[in-house]
């Protein structure tokens, strides 16, 4: 049975207005996240994955980014359905930090250097749940304990620069979870961390998500992380989802040349050493990500695609159902 989604994005189109003209950063994006489900958005820099997260939060850079089309329906904690793109500033502010929590990439710069960690975690509790300063502080200490910070009462009174990188990211997770949100958006939460800490943070996020039954939208460029944490995956390229489906299925049988190329590009310990000894370079996808300013009319991946035929260049391919809920934006998916 398919659970009712917490977040349902349909036809999202996010446009950035820059000096050279309008840039379509996200193009006709459909996405759902159900309660208790983790959906990974994966892609290279500039693929639009982070912009998708910011679009949901209504945190696109002011005066530059805007949602040009589409609907973003969110089921709030109260069960009320809201359309995020339509409700406007003040109503959206009540949703942010309350129904949706967000964790960012850089834990140090994401925390305000001049306030204690406890104060920053207590802040959304006071704003959204109307708790007193004292109650909110006590709750912040409990949250710090929940995210695995030892001696939470003392740590709450410390400033961000007094915490280690891993601990800071735990603190920002505690901050995002402060109001027990229905949806957590994690934007590359492990990218800035040491590999050993990465695994701990992933385990923590997975545990918290299970305990709280939240939906989680996990933005990353790391396929290994996707395999670790996500139920479903959406691969993005040049603003579009090019392939989506369950992680097991997409990883076992990628049906889009880009996904396939990405997976081949992940160095594996044994293979990489063998290739090095043989003197062969690591496999890569030739070419580079196209500029979003002047996208070709057809498939955006066509210039780099080994499966390219004339039809690819002439029209933007639709998402094709390859079975079992796996979709591929490739007209030759059967041959991939």
């Amino acid at each position: 049975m398919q659970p009712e989604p917490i977040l349902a994005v349909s036809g999202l189109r996010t446009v950035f207005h820059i000096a050279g003209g309008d840039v379509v950063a996200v193009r006709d994006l459909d996405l759902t996240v159900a309660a208790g489900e983790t959906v990974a958005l994966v892609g290279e820099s500039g693929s639009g994955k982070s912009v998708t997260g910011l679009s949901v939060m209504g945190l696109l850079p002011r005066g530059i980014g805007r949602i040009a089309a589409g609907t973003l329906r969110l089921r709030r904690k109260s069960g009320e359905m809201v359309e995020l793109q339509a409700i406007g500033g003040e109503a959206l502010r009540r949703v942010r930090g309350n129904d949706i929590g967000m964790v960012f990439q850089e834990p140090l710069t994401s925390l305000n250097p001049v306030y204690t960690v406890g104060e920053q975690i207590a802040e959304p509790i006071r704003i959204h749940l109307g708790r007193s300063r004292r109650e909110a502080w006590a709750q912040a200490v409990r949250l710090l304990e929940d995210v695995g910070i030892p001696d939470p009462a003392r740590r709450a009174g410390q400033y961000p620069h007094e915490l280690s990188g891993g601990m800071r990211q735990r603190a920002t997770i505690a901050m995002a979870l402060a109001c027990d949100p229905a949806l957590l958006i994690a934007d590359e939460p492990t990218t800035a961390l040491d590999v050993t800490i990465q695994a701990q943070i992933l385990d923590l996020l997975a545990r918290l998500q299970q305990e709280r039954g939240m939906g989680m939208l996990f933005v990353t460029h790391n396929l290994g992380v996707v395999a670790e944490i996500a139920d479903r995956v959406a691969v993005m390229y040049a603003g579009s989802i090019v392939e989506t489906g369950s992680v097991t299925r997409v990883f076992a049988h990628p049906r889009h040349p880009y996904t396939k190329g990405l997976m081949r590009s992940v160095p594996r310990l044994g293979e990489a050493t063998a290739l090095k000894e043989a003197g062969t370079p690591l496999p890569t996808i030739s070419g580079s990500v196209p500029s979003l300013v002047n996208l070709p009319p057809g498939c955006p991946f066509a210039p780099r695609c080994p499966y390219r035929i004339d039809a690819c260049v002439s029209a933007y391919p639709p998402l094709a159902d390859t079975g079992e809920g796996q979709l591929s934006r490739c007209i030759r998916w059967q041959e991939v």
Partner: protein
Amino acid sequence: MLHYILRRSAVGLLMLLALTVLIFGMLRLAPGDPIDAYINPSVPMSASDLGALRVRLGLDQPLPVQYFAWLGAAVTGDFGYSIQRGGEPVLPLVLGRIGPTILLMFSGLLIATVAGIAAGIISAVRRNQPTDVGLSVLAFVGISSPAFLTALLGLYIFAVMLRWAPAGGMLTPGAPFSLTDLLAHLILPASLLAIGHGALIMRYMRSSLLEVLSQDYVRTARAKGVTEFWVIVKHAVRNALLPVITLIGSTIGIAIGGAIFIESIFDWPGMGLLMVNAVLRRDYPVIMCATLLTGACVIIVNLLTDIAYAAVDPRIKVA
């Protein structure tokens, strides 16, 4: 913290000492000596009388001897007697004048800080909108206008033409003391003193806040659902204040110079007139004492801004 203050105070004392050496030497380098200004030119004096006068004032001694004699007396609190003012003791004379100067200076600094920071915040939040452009133009004019121009112009417009404030003095002569009378006399010179400083603070605040507003933690605050007002006031302004505090502390000396200038235009009974006259007439003891106290003020304010800096930014450890 105490250790830090003590260490800074010790450094401050050394700086004061260096200041006295510098001023003492520079005064002696200037042509003329107190005797030239002391004597009445219409009464002829013999060379031996002049010599005797020099000996009596100690001016015949070599410079280092004079300096250490002055220093030795000064550390005991004895700053000597004014050469020109009929032998008045210097310390009460200067202390009596330093109060009004400090009042004027700090009022000016307060107005400059409050107005500069407020205008800087408004300007940054309304970036590139008419309010921002207007404030930036005002700041540019404020920074570019020399004090003698703004002071005279302000005096003419607000005291002479509009008659909003008295044109000079600190209190109405003959009237009993009242705070409103003092404030009425204070507001115009203090505001004019604040113009240049306030404009500078505004420009610093604006650029500092604009930089802070693009920081990740401001986005985090928005992601938590903090209202825009508190995003600015709580999360951004406190961080943006750091460079502005440094600016205020490091330009305090300029404010003193400005205060002395404004005093002479508004006939403010502070150290300005005293010092100008003392320099003109080579009244060495008065100059030394006034300079020393002014220097002490600057050093104390700098120490206070450093402490304020540590209070605003927890990353700075004063130990």
